[in-house]
């Protein structure tokens, strides 16, 4: 599935969110964990007729979501998600947040307890720029999109695309779809793990219980 098949216009929404939206079918129940200002949820409700809920840590994000008429609760994702019943959503989204979790392995299991499927996107630390930064400078990489020094970054659990795939295997999680996202925020048409892990700036996966 790609953007063109869905007739969704890129101008409606941030490009990385559009990629996620394209992985969600019509009329499903969706929980966005770390939904920010509710842009993706609002889009899914409008364009995909989805029944949507969100969890967001920042009061400002919740405020903006509520003003869009969205039902969003404020709180720590890892804590709050545990209070949702099993199978209460068709899809649970974790966008660009996996690396900030205390225990990424536990949150993946929780996503798939609460949802039948999960859509997970994360920055790829296997990207060639990151590798070169560490190899040549000998310092922790600081990228434009993740602009924090190592000692104060909220992103405490970086992984590579290969790490993520390995973790899914270890947790007996099925990967239904996966892609590497390039510099421009659009899907990269590469099939090999080596190339994805080297040139993808982000990994984007649909996962399910085995």
């Amino acid at each position: 599935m790609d953007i063109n098949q869905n007739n969704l216009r890129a101008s409606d929404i941030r490009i990385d969110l559009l990629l996620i939206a394209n992985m969600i079918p019509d009329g499903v129940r969706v929980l966005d964990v770390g939904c920010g200002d509710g842009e993706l949820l609002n889009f899914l409700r409008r364009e995909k007729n989805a029944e949507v809920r969100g969890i967001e840590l920042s009061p400002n994000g919740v405020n903006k979501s509520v003003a869009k008429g969205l039902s969003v609760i404020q709180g720590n994702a890892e804590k709050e998600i545990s209070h949702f019943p099993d199978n209460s959503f068709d899809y649970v989204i974790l966008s660009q947040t996996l690396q900030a979790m205390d225990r990424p392995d536990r949150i993946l299991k929780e996503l798939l307890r609460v949802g039948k499927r999960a859509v997970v996107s994360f920055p790829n630390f296997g990207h060639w720029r990151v590798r070169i930064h560490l190899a040549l400078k000998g310092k922790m990489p600081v990228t434009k999109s993740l602009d924090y020094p190592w000692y104060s970054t909220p992103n405490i659990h970086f992984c590579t695309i290969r790490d993520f795939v390995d973790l899914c295997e270890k947790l007996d999680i099925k990967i239904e779809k996966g892609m590497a996202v390039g510099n421009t925020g659009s899907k990269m048409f590469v099939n090999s793990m080596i190339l994805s892990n080297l040139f993808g700036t982000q990994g984007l996966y649909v996962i399910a219980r085995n």
Partner: protein
Amino acid sequence: MKEKEKNAKDDGFVEEVTLGEIHPLQLSSGGTLSPFKIAYKSWGKLNSDKSNAILVCHALTGDQYARGKNPLTGKDGWWPKMIGPGLPIDTNKYFVICTNVLGSCSGTSGPKEINTKTNEPYGLDFPVITIADMVSAQVMLVNYLKIDQLFSVIGGSMGGMQVLQWAVNHSARVRTAIPIASTWRHSAQNIAFHEVGRQAIMADPNWSKGRYFENDNGPHAGLSVARMAAHITYMSERSLTAKFGRNLQDREKLTFGFDADFQVESYLRYQGISFVDRFDANSYLYITRAMDYFDISADYGGNLSKAFENTPVKFCIMSFTSDWLYTTQESREIVRALNAVGAQVSSVEIDMEKGHDSFLLDCPEMFNIIAGFLAAEAGK
């Protein structure tokens, strides 16, 4: 703009109705009340399909004068920045009602009012009531106004308890619910503080077993102490320290006596004394009792989620970081119960230092969320 219309939006109208003459109010205790009065205030204009009514519910010692001058105290209403033209509860758009709750003392039937059967004040002959009874009385008023569904029910503290009660008992008649700084049941600590207040009143010899209306004197000292104790629970340690610290009151040094040496003592005494002028001691007993009896899960075997099963109501729940009376934890329990049954709920914990009373103060974040929530729902 016509004078009457402008007045409706701005200062509002003070009204009073007698209800329950034919169909008595059925009370939780098994008793009935017939007839009874409801005093209320309204602002704005009910639209033609009656879909823009908002019920604002007041807290323990509040009244119907949420906006505009309170004729009893001469002071401004208790939510002046929340309700009004262009404000979060916008009286240009909504028809806003605020009722004095059953058992209170600003015109609605309560222990201070005349029992038509005996032609003297009820005193302790007034039946013990619950939050559900207050809401049943409000339902009768809403019926009288011929409003099928309220666009929203909004309230803080005990007002939030009424909001939850509306949502649970009358879910088809509430479109949105906004409980603020509230709880789903009174905790042991909440009950304990109220018991201190009640004992202070009843220990005052002037209370005269609730028949102080026969004398010139009421239990002023007791009611005053009750208010002082309660007032501490409405503030935070930080806000008390910021406001008073250990500052002395109009003196250079300690007097080694029991006069109000400290500013905080003087402040509390003033809070107590001024409260006596505007509140009835028996009402204080009845309303604190109603709050202590409040447990929205009680009819559902203690299962809070069950209370909200299949609810069509859309919730927006707010709490304050420094509120130690009805904590964020208690709001979160409501949020989790609602999520467990797939209800539509938003929640925010607002960072504010001023304790439980934050909901009555100037809090832009609270105003923004309520304005956004209501506007989004109205825009549908």
